[in-house]
């Protein structure tokens, strides 16, 4: 399958501070990949490198086969970019900004933009700077839909949005990208939104990738187990068990192991437990399970 984005041995440092080293990932055509990570793990850094706003300390990123630091106008036409905070030219109004961008994109779909703007019920001559964060997010999304890009890069799209606008944003985007077979690279702080949108997740920890796999596969194989035991201390040394903790007398661990294999493993390590319960996880819980609460 054709890869729309390909990052090879991507390494970046801010001064002496390492963000990550030798990061490798690909996004095949038609997939929606969510980049998940705690603050400071390098999500926006990656987006900046992809769009040529940051030269990596090492490695490279290719978009449509071109080096991301030197994209041709033809490739930029294929990339819709949503900047963190839904930043747009806020000195323009809805009509002016549509008129401005339409000059740059030959496949411009005016009706897609105004279709979304009709939902806002605001004066078309109102400046973007006087709109709420939610309204601005819809303007930014509408412009991307009208651009009709092959690849959408959305940096923290849920930032500053209330639940209603977040849902509107995800629903509209979801329908669009699935109908039109678009490729999406998205980051967000709010992982519930991502769960409804993404096919694959790439989870970043400080300095490295924890995993990249389809969300369905992750949620079907990654589990949380709760049980009673004397202490969770012996669990800390077992590599297959992630982030064991005891809360109010109940111990919990996260793992990819099935229930019977976990029981076997604990027996082999002479750890006796009672009342073993297996929990299915949401993406947010799986994220916490993989990265830890702190």
């Amino acid at each position, binding site marked *: 399958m054709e890869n729309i984005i390909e990052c090879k041995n991507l390494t970046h440092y801010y001064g002496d501070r390492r963000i990550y080293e030798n990061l490798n990932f690909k996004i095949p055509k038609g997939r929606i990949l969510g980049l998940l990570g705690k603050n400071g793990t390098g999500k926006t850094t990656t987006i900046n490198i992809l769009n040529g706003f940051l030269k990596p300390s090492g490695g490279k990123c290719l978009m449509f086969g071109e080096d991301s630091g030197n994209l041709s106008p033809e490739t930029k036409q294929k990339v819709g*970019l949503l900047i963190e905070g839904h930043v*747009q030219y806020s000195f*323009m109004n809805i009509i002016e900004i549509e008129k401005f961008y339409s000059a740059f994109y030959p496949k411009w779909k005016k009706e897609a933009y105004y279709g979304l703007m009709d939902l806002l019920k605001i004066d078309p001559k109102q400046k973007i700077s006087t709109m709420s964060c939610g309204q601005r997010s819809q303007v930014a999304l509408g412009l991307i839909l009208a651009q009709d890009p092959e690849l959408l890069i959305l940096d923290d799209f849920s930032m500053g949005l209330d639940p209603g606008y977040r849902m509107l944003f995800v629903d509209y985007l979801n329908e669009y990208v699935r109908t039109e077979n678009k490729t999406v690279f998205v980051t967000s702080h709010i992982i519930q939104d991502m769960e409804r949108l993404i096919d694959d997740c790439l989870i970043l920890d400080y300095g490295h990738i924890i995993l990249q796999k389809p969300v369905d596969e992750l949620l079907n194989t990654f589990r949380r187990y709760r049980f009673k035991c004397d202490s969770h201390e012996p669990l800390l040394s077992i590599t297959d068990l992630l982030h064991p903790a005891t809360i109010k007398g109940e111990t919990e661990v996260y793992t990819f192991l099935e229930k019977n294999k976990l029981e076997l493993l604990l027996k082999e390590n002479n750890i006796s437990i009672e009342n073993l319960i297996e929990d299915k996880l949401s993406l947010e819980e799986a994220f916490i399970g993989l990265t830890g609460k702190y």
Partner: protein
Amino acid sequence: MWKAIIYKEWKKTKWFNIGIWMVAILLLTYIFMKIGRSFRFVGMEHLWDVVVNRDQFLFRNLKYFPIAAGIIFGLSQFVPEVIEKRIKLTLHLPLPKHRAILIMIAYGLILLTITFTIHILTTIVFVQLYFPKEIIISMIFTIVPWYISGLVAYSFIAMISLEPTWKRRIFNIILMVLTLDLFYISDFPGAYRFNIYLVILISIYVMPFVFLSVNRFKKGIQD
């Protein structure tokens, strides 16, 4: 596509441009009225004596208008690009490398040049009613460096605004002040008669400086 960029620049700078034009008109009206008043009160002979024998310059009020216009126009155009790093939107437009910035700079320099040229020509038309060619030429050599300093200030403001780090920004401000100082060494009539080419050369030399800042921004250099 260049028309769309011009449209965006106009949206940002429209009111500042109108403001600069209003100040330009008011300033010339004030100067012309002041000189006309001097004609009537002290007489033409005395005014001639002051200008020719005592090397007094009647248009000193024009001195800081172009530099102020260049700085204000530059700020109105580039500060909105820096707020929330909107310059990313501009750099993401599907245009060849540096094309968008080149059009933005050309827009500012052309608009300021038109404003300044009309201002200078209007002054010349007025002056030639009362003074001979020698005085007019002397006046041109005095005021043209001031107007060119407006263009230089504009180029520096573009560079300073788009610079991503404060340390380098402060260095650039110092560089701007020192460079602009060269345009105000003397307002003695005809002071720049023999080094006007140097002044023009400086203005051309500083124009591409903005691309240094853009390249540093694209490399992701931070404080």
